[in-house]
């Protein structure tokens, strides 16, 4: 395993079990899992048992002391900053799950810690690795579609992510609800495809807790963007980009391609890759990209610095949130 990148993982919950584990198993010849840490022993075992050389350590400090090249921070967002900064100080590079931090202050501190340590801190904006989002990027860069006119997105469905407990739905732990979770991905993609979007208005359905439904209005240059997010009801998950001369429609279920429609006729066509690709493979691609970057080679990553505008926008949305209109919600005759 000479030349393999060594990895330590903090947080062995759903994202690690569902996505990082298969990605690492597929890369046994290229990675060495030094250790794992989670407050839940069963979750730690679920990862550790696949890697006989991996230590299951009882504290985050012990994990950092293993001296891995890369620490993957897959713990709840409330501890991302503390853990990422500690790992950077210890000399590791860090791949942090999204949302990077609960606010701009802590996110900035994380980016500064990476700079001071001379280490890489990247945020796992995993959708950047999907063939479909790369195709969108290339179609836009080709320029033939003309000016962007409007963006509409609907994403979500009944929430089925195998979380461990209700703390996931705590603002103090997760930073918010679906906006912090899925909204972060979409804002990141818009930032990648266009100039950084600016905030217009935000509303959600939180009533003392965290939102299950959200509607974020942005502007990308002159174009309005409406992002509707839901943990509630299944609708076709799609991002629609309307341009002067055509439109791109990306359905999240199609990880490998998009639909392109040109306004001068010709109907709709699928632009995509035929090679099989799964969402899970993005996590492998992300690990590969980290290894490339650590080796000093160019890689497709979202650095901490690059992630700051998204953190800023999400934070502002929550600060200026309004309650969505839900005229069916109040029971007839209920106390207001």
């Amino acid at each position: 395993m000479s030349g393999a990148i060594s990895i330590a993982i903090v947080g062995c919950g759903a994202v690690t079990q569902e996505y990082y584990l298969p990605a690492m198993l597929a890369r046994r010849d290229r990675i060495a899992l030094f250790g794992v840490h989670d407050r839940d022993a069963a979750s730690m075992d679920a990862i550790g048992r696949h890697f006989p050389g991996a230590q299951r350590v009882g504290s985050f400090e012990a994990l950092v002391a293993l001296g891995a090249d890369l620490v993957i921070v897959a713990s709840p967002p409330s501890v991302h900053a503390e853990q990422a900064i500690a790992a950077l100080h210890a000399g590791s590079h860090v791949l942090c799950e999204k949302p990077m931090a609960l606010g701009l202050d802590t996110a900035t501190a994380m980016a500064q810690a990476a700079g001071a340590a001379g280490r890489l801190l990247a945020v796992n904006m995993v959708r950047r690795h999907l063939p479909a989002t790369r195709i969108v990027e290339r179609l836009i860069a080709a320029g033939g579609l003309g000016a962007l006119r409007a963006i509409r997105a609907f994403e979500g469905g009944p929430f089925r992510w195998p979380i461990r407990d209700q703390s996931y739905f705590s603002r103090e732990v997760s930073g918010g609800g679906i906006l912090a979770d899925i909204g972060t991905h979409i804002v990141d993609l818009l930032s990648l495809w266009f100039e950084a979007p600016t905030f217009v208005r935000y509303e959600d359905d939180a009533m003392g807790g965290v939102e299950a439904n959200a509607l974020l209005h942005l502007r990308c240059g002159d174009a309005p963007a409406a992002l509707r997010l839901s943990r509630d009801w299944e609708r076709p998950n799609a991002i629609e980009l309307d341009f002067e001369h055509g439109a791109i429609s990306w359905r999240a279920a199609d990880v490998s391609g998009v639909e392109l429609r040109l306004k001068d006729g010709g109907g709709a066509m699928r632009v995509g890759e035929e090679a099989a690709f799964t969402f899970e493979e993005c996590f492998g691609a992300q690990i590969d990209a980290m290894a490339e970057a650590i080796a000093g080679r160019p890689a497709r990553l979202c650095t901490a610095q690059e992630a700051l505008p998204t953190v800023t926008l999400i934070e502002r949305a929550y600060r200026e949130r309004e309650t969505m209109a839900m005229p069916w919600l109040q029971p007839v005759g209920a106390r207001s």
Partner: protein
Amino acid sequence: MTASPHVVGVIGANGFIGNRIVEMLHLGGVHDVRPIVRQASGLALASRFALAGRIADAFDEAAIEAALQGCDIVVHALAGDHRAIVGTVGTVYRAAERAGCKRLVYLSSAMVHGQSPPPGCDDATPLSHKQPIHYNLSKIKAEERLFALRRKRRLEAVALRPGIVFGPRSQWIGGLADSLLTGEAYLIDGGEGLCNAIYVDNLVEGIVRAFDAPAADGEAFLLGDAETPRWEEVYRRVAGAVGVDMASVPSLGFTAPMPGLMDRVDEWRQSAPVRAALDALPKSLSRGLGAFWAASGALPPPPPKGPNPTLEMALLQRAQHVPGWERAHRLLGYAPVVQADEAWARTLAWLAFAGYPTGARDG
């Protein structure tokens, strides 16, 4: 609603009806409500209110008992297949009794009388075990278990029998909108049959009435709305909201086919024990078995695109009688609190909120 405050555990709080119970009890400000779900992910909607939920599988008596500690009322609103419908009544009853609850309100269904109930059918009509729809038989069995337990034990029990429960997040609404938009919707015989509709808030009103009504213990009650629409009207309201021309919705006849060998094989494959066994297998192996089934030709072919009428829908849309809820009015003090126009206004507002193309909202 009645004003006696209770601590109410809602089992199945993530479902359409369970969620609305949680919303109404919490927003109503009279009762404390405790959502109970099988998996933590099921607390996504309850967490809008920062309500502390409990994670407990309704098959796990000890877990349900722990989840119900401190509750005096439990509402069993769990949806599911035959195994879940029948298998959780006893566990929940015994757990609630041990947890010190006073009363269990069980969500049964008007379908215990069939999708096309006979003329004159009402609360007093004996239930028939000769019905072609398995769901109906499951609900009958569940009620029988519930009341058998009640006869032997202490915990009070009430069963409620709503018909077609509609409103925000109802599959009867969202699912109908989906099928209208995909061209899969159809009417049977022009949708002239009666729809035994009840707006979900009216059902919750009935549930709350059942918390305290002294004469309700050990009884089952039909519940309904003040108005009874025809199915065509239900379709027309939803189609109008999502911009589908009712002229494009075909009116079909229906003749029930006899189940063939493939249907029986598929029914076995979908049965709870087989599915449980498949669920226990590693993902790669269960995927492989799925591919085997597909390749073996033992599965029924996927239905063709477009309308695929079912026996259940045919029976529903041919209904000529809707059992009344006079007994619920008399013994529970039940009366609908939301009338049809308001119920539909609320329902269609939700369709826009949920992202359907109603043209009513930007986003």
